[in-house]
């Protein structure tokens, strides 16, 4: 970018010298700074059914490891069909006898208690979340745990105000809901699921992801401390089979699933004809669109937040950068400088920006797609940084010269990999952004207000972030268009999905 006068400075001072560069070296290395708070892990976690920790009927357990170093953290109970049945019975029983009979203001009080107890034990939960899932402690401490508490607090306040949720109609709870959540935000997804369900008066059977069950079962301790009546919330742990059983159970009046589009479709197929209400929160391939009049440094920060937050394990990640051609070189140059100072490393270190990839399987998927990007001719850039020898890690990666025909522009990578495409006009940006089967989120960076509003109108996405990215709030409804799913979570709109109009 040249200023008026810098033209004259440029010619007098450069004269064939090399282009100026910034040095991001090791003059001032940060020492290791691990978070030392005790996560208070148990060596074995049982199922949580009817207010008790119970062993699985099969007697089987599976290991949960720390993806940062592949060491075992704990054993987790492996639920079977009989356990899922017991959980649903407990939930139905609690609904019929207790929960549906409680006044909304009393239901609210339980949710407020859960929020406060989680706030009390915030640091402990943050460490546990980082160890189990691999996300940086900075994120679990500053985002996941406080946001989970906020979700409980927000929804608590709705429990006795349900007459305002659906103007002109009365809402009633559905009964028992079955929920399956993913491994990318274990505790937060748990809060997103059970808080509205309970506020609305339902009871819950929930299965966390098999690689991240620990904070779910720790929350069961809080649920007990809060005095929540037994059976209102039940947790069953395990993998795909258990998830399928939770989704298919006849007592589930509604099921809610967050995960990949692929698995979402499997569930939808299996439930076809059952009459169950469903909400699906699936994958995404969001476009983050930067115009030439955008505040560029802040846009670069938004791009980085969009794709490297939580190692890119985010359904609404801004995994496609659509940059206006006039500023493409500039943005890419700034982006490269910015990612050179991102720190990849042990998630428990407070200075880590990009933690561990959640599992070996996910690492394999990311590697395969990145290889395809190289093979298909896109230009790859990764900063030089030393990765730990154990554990699952991937460098932040950007691909430029990507087009919509590349696999890395079409398939969800779910990793710290950004694909950069260019566009020339507003209409072209809209077209490219919408040229996908997904439709969860999008970002728009421009100084012009009317353009923000136009883009927001035209983009086929459930969440549009303008001059920001990856912002979440319990009051703000979240969910997708097209194959990113249906239904909303959060806000007034999200609540209605957990009730029926009476």
């Amino acid at each position, binding site marked *: 970018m040249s*200023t008026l006068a810098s033209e004259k400075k440029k010619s007098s*001072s450069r004269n064939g010298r090399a282009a*100026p560069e*910034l*040095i991001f070296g090791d003059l001032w290395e*940060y020492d290791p700074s691990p978070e030392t708070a005790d996560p208070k892990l148990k060596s074995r976690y049982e199922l949580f059914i009817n207010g008790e920790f119970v062993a699985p009927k099969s007697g089987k357990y599976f290991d949960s490891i720390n993806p940062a170093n592949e060491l075992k953290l704990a054993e987790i109970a492996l639920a079977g069909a009989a356990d899922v049945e017991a959980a649903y019975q407990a939930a139905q029983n609690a609904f019929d006898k207790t929960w549906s009979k409680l006044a909304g203001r009393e239901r609210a009080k339980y949710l407020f208690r859960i929020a406060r107890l989680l706030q009390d034990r915030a640091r402990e939960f943050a460490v546990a979340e980082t160890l189990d899932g691999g996300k940086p402690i900075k994120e679990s401490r500053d985002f996941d745990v406080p946001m989970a508490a906020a979700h409980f607090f927000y929804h608590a306040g709705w429990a006795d105000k349900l007459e305002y949720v659906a103007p002109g109609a009365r809402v009633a709870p559905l009964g028992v809901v079955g929920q399956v959540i993913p491994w990318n935000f274990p505790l937060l997804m748990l809060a997103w699921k059970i808080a509205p369900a309970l506020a609305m008066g339902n009871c819950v059977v929930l299965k966390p992801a098999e690689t991240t069950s620990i904070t779910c079962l720790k929350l069961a301790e809080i649920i007990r401390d809060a005095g929540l009546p037994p059976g209102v919330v039940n947790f069953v742990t395990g993998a795909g089979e258990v998830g399928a059983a939770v989704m298919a159970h006849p007592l589930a009046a509604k099921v809610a699933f967050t995960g990949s589009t692929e698995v979402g479709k499997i569930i939808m197929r299996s439930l076809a004809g059952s009459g169950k209400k469903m909400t699906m929160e699936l994958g995404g391939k969001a476009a983050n669109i930067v115009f030439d009049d955008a*505040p560029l440094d802040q846009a670069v920060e938004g791009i980085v937040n969009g794709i490297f937050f939580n190692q890119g394990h985010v359904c609404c990640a801004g995994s496609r950068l659509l940059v206006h051609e006039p500023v493409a070189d500039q943005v890419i140059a700034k982006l490269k400088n910015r990612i050179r100072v991102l720190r990849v490393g042990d998630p428990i270190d407070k200075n880590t920006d990009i933690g561990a990839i959640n599992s070996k399987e996910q690492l394999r998927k990311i590697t395969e797609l990145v290889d395809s990007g190289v093979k298909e001719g896109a230009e790859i850039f990764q900063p030089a940084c030393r990765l730990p020898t154990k554990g699952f890690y991937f460098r932040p990666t950007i691909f430029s010269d990507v087009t919509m025909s590349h696999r890395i522009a079409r398939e969800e990578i779910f990793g710290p990999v950004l694909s950069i495409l260019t566009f020339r006009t507003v209409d072209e940006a809209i077209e490219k952004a919408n040229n996908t089967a997904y439709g969860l989120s999008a970002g728009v960076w421009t100084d012009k207000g009317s353009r923000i509003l136009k883009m927001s109108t035209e983009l086929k996405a459930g969440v549009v972030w303008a001059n920001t990215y990856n912002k979440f709030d319990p009051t703000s409804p979240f969910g997708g268009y097209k194959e990113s799913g249906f239904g909303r979570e959060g806000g007034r709109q999200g609540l209605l999905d957990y009730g029926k109009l009476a």
Partner: protein
Amino acid sequence: MTSAAREISFGFTLQRENSERMSVRFSLPAFRRLFDEIGPVDQIGVEERVAKYTTRSIKKNSKLWGLKTAVSMVDLTTLEGKDTPGKVASLCRKALRPHDDPEIPQVAAVCVYPAMVRHARRVLGSDTAVRIASVATSFPSGQAPLRTRIGEVKSAVADGADEIDMVINRGAFLAGEFDRVQDEISAVKEAGGTATLKVILEVSELETYDNVRAASFIAMEELREGDFIKTSTGKTSLNATLGNNQVMIEAIRDFFLDTGIAISMKPAGGIRTAKQALQFLIAVKETLGDAWLNNARYRFGASSLLNDLLRQIEKEKTGAYQAPYYFSEAAESY
């Protein structure tokens, strides 16, 4: 700089009645051109970026390195109506020897009013690494005739100042008279001769980050490598923050990558604790890189900061939190 060079010309060709061609120069006001060139700044975005600096955790050797580097970057300052030769002498002695510990470096400079420069020079002598910075140009308001302001600069340099901290004409800036702002900077630079020039933008009066970015570029266009842009006089209620520091160092970075000229940075006022100083250094490290982590390229305009840095260094070395009275007073009270 001629007005012709300042115009962006949109050439329109008109057919006149008698077939003469005429091209019309259409020029936008200077402030709109400048803002279009440098691009907008989003306030919330900046503040989110700098919030990440505050969650960095700097420990052990990296903390010691940061603290000592910060000491070496201090422009130890006294700018009070009640300054006397005695006060300035005390300040200079502290600058030369901040603490009993020989591993602690000297500060970069002392910063005083023009009338105090010769007293500082007398105490520091002529063979010292500690520089003498003088505020000048009717600091802090700058509201005096140009000739007075220039006279002050010359007199401070004559008395022995190595560096001049000047204030820009905020009134002219806010009225969009960018030429005037630049011409005055140029005049001060000339009057200072080889003295290092630090240009104070007075961020609190510019108010928006867009203005801070614009003022940064306006200043940098007149500066030489080794000169500084500086946040504030320290005499208003809002001084250096991570936010305005970030906007200015991003401007410095953009200017450097574009021209190859490395301008230096000085946040001043409002940085009282070692913790804050480390956060500013983190910002520099992650935005400008290693080449700016030294006192030729970065300074802290501060007074009470120095002793807090010393307390933290001592705590790092001994493991014990320190009472303030173990460290010599110099800047706070006399």
